[in-house]
């Protein structure tokens, strides 16, 4: 199978960030340290290619915290598969995302 997207450093960083639990747009910006303007276009593209899947968070959670529902991103099975390639191409990346979500 040919690759679905070009595996640049920013793309790889976004994928690994999602995999290590940074699921929301702003969290991913924080975790990856990528320029703010680049993260969303990457997310959109990966979602269109079926590598990521966007979901609305649980309504109860948002209500409890008195804020609107956020949209989070998760790896699809295709996305899971692509992680191996990400690790192969950018072996130093995982250490950057070793931390727990939200603490970055």
């Amino acid at each position: 199978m040919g690759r679905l997207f070009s595996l640049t450093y920013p793309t790889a960083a976004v994928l690994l960030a999602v995999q290590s639990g940074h699921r929301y747009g702003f969290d991913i910006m924080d975790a990856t340290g990528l320029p703010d303007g680049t993260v969303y276009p990457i997310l959109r593209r990966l979602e269109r290619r079926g590598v990521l899947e966007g979901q609305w968070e649980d309504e109860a959670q948002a209500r409890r915290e008195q804020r609107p529902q956020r949209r989070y991103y998760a790896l699809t099975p295709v996305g899971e598969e692509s992680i191996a390639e990400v690790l192969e191409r950018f072996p130093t990346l995982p250490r950057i995302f070793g931390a727990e979500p939200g603490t970055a």
Partner: protein
Amino acid sequence: MTEIPGHRLIASAARLVPPPRRTEWQREWEAEAAYAWQRLVREGTPSSLAVLRLRVRVLTCWIDALWERKQTMTMMGMWADLRFAARSLLRYPTFTTVAVVTLALGIGVNTAVFTLVDGVLISPLPYDEPEELLSLEHLGRDGRDELPMSTGLYALYQEQSRSIEELALHSMQAVNLVGGGDPERILVQVVTPTFFQVLGAQAAVGRTFSEAEGLPDGPRVAVLSDGMWRERFDADPGVIGQTVDINGVLREVIGIMPASFGYPDRRARLWLPMVVDPNQAPLAAFGMGGVARMAEGSTIETVDGELRGLIGRLDEFFPESGAVAFLTQVGLAPRVRPLKESLVGELDRTLWILLGTVGFVLLIACANVANLLIVRAESRQRELALRVAVGAGRADVVRAFMSESFVLAVIGGVGGLLVAAGAVRLSMDLVPTNIPRLDEIGIDARVLTFTGAISIGSALLFGLFPLLRSSGDLAGQLRDGGGRGQTGSKQTHRLRNGLVVTQMALALVLLVGSGLMLRSFQAMRTMDPGFDAEGVLTARITIPNAEVQDNGEVASFFRTLLQQLDEHPLVASAGFAQSVPLGGGVGYHNLAVEDFPAGNGEIGVLASNNQISAGYFEAMGIDVVEGRSFEPGDGADGVRAAIVNAAFAERWWPGESALGRRMNRDSPQEEWFEVVGVVENAHYQSLEATPEHMVYWPATVGPADTPLPARSVDVAIRTTGDPTALIPILRGAVAELNARIPVSNPRAMTEVVSDATARTAFTMVLLGAASGVALLLGIVGIYGVISYIVAQRTREIGVRMALGATASSVRSMVVRHGLVLAAWGVVVGLAGAVAMSRVIASILFGVTATDPWTYVVVAALLTVVAAGASWLPARRAAGVDPSNALRSD
């Protein structure tokens, strides 16, 4: 809670996002912003820096929104445009059909010719690492003598050269295959055992030659071609180990080559090992082809340099050979070329010219389609103006136009592939069989890429023209209520006139090209080849040593055969020669001429040699200019006679008679032969080349009891009727004498001549077809423009007629318009043709590239055709009813 920073930014950016995605998009950004704000506030009043950071981050939602917009618009928009284009094309079936057929023709002929070019010139040879393969040849006298390869040089290079990894010799021979069914005369390649190794070719079944099989007294073996194996042995793998009788020698079959292998000549039915004794390999026995594989790190230059060095030291390596002096004298030099280049030979020029030609046809086709599209663009003004009015940008308008061109090009491209597939299949019967690598030709991925590229290229080209015209004020058009603005029309006319002039000019260039080819072909056909092919049959007969050993018997075989043939009522005269004209296989040799003695080590007189029988000149229709023809008994002891051709006589005894001069075949102990006749120059090599100097010797030379006869001859028989009727008569006569001797390749001499003109004929037919298409497209172009102008000017014509203009004056006005366009086309085209004449000059024969007659006739033809194409719309114009015309608008 205070308002979340950036809230309004998000709302305004959301307007950019296409509606289907907008709500979700906005919700997501707002939620993110809200969440981030909440976290800031939870830790107390946020610092102004933190707020600013959040604002900047939210600001990037614009980037996201713009990306979303672009993505959705290009995907949705492009698709919608394509669908719209397809639908609107379907609404105008005539326009679409004409455009598609035009494009399919243009793209088709280009694809077809590219398929040829690709198969012959571009694609690599089907051998291992083909770029390492070289053809080895030698030239003498600055390229005037071709001295391919000799066994002596082979042995020398093999031993001494470091830049060559391995080399091999090959030589085509005709042998008699006996046993099984009819005796058969077949072509074989005799090759050194290194041959298959050099090419990296493996046997499909069994093996290829081993080193021992190339040594004197080595095992007698043969490797079969796939074709031979299938036809003669029913593809039986058990044939390995069986024996075949070749020229009376039994040889064991050791291998079968795959069907794909056919180097260096497809006609070879099997391969025999060449026996080379390195200690006795003659240095000057040229006449073999050489192929080599470069050693790693070598280049053509290093190989060439090394071989030059070795040739410079020939006297060291061959101290006893008398040939060294001769080779030094002629300035023997290696000619090292990539193998592919030597295979393709001079064909590349013809093919590139053809590709250029059909490129012109495609340009003309594009001009035609552009013309059609401009008309379409006129009628689309309103639609486009509407698009602009509802907010389409310049890019959208371009896309709307281009998508239609694109759809046309894609359909045209597919049609073109069909045309090409048909044309390639058709032309396979037409192309001269000596075109190399013919069987490798086919439509492959590279050809498909080419077709795709020229289709898209054409779409860009012809799609551009309507854009040039529509860059005006579209909104203004809408306001004015229709696409009839006068300025626009004027611009359009100029554009379309320009296109038609270009078309005419291109068509003229092509017509001049094909006219010149036609004249070349005519010149070739009507030239005096120095013999009379009409009513002559030729066939080759070879008597192998193993079949008839005794020379006297061989001589009497041919003598009796000629006698029997002469007695037949259908035969006017009969004779034979080592080689008949255009038959190939005339050898160049050194002569000793009494009047021009050569010093030691100098070259004497060089000439082609041909051994012929009495009756040969009469049968072949070669006229005796001076003296007499051969008679039976010439050549025997005491009657040493020779005949020279006019070119030879003129070269050595200009203005004097050659009769009575004496010469021999450069062996000091041989007697002198006296020139008894001079004959006209017959073309032996090719029709195009100047006839070589030639000396004819009697067929049988020597004392009556031990004559030395030619063993392999071309028989020539002249009849008053159909020469092919002689084939059974000849076969019968030969079989009666010896049933094991085959008659091979019997052909009417006229067929031999037409084969020799095949390449010119092929080029002529292709160029003719291309320029025919060009002319047709040109006619369509001029007709279209004039018709359109007439339609546009219906009102004006109506007014003129109402004011008293006659039908004929209207007609001539319209035709004049067409002729003005044609005249411009002719002027530009003539200039173009003169500029291109240098390119085509190299493939012409008997006519100069600036032949005035061709130019005049073609220019006249084009003018007449243009007048004809304008006549139809002119007649329509003259039929305009003034009252209708004035009312219609």
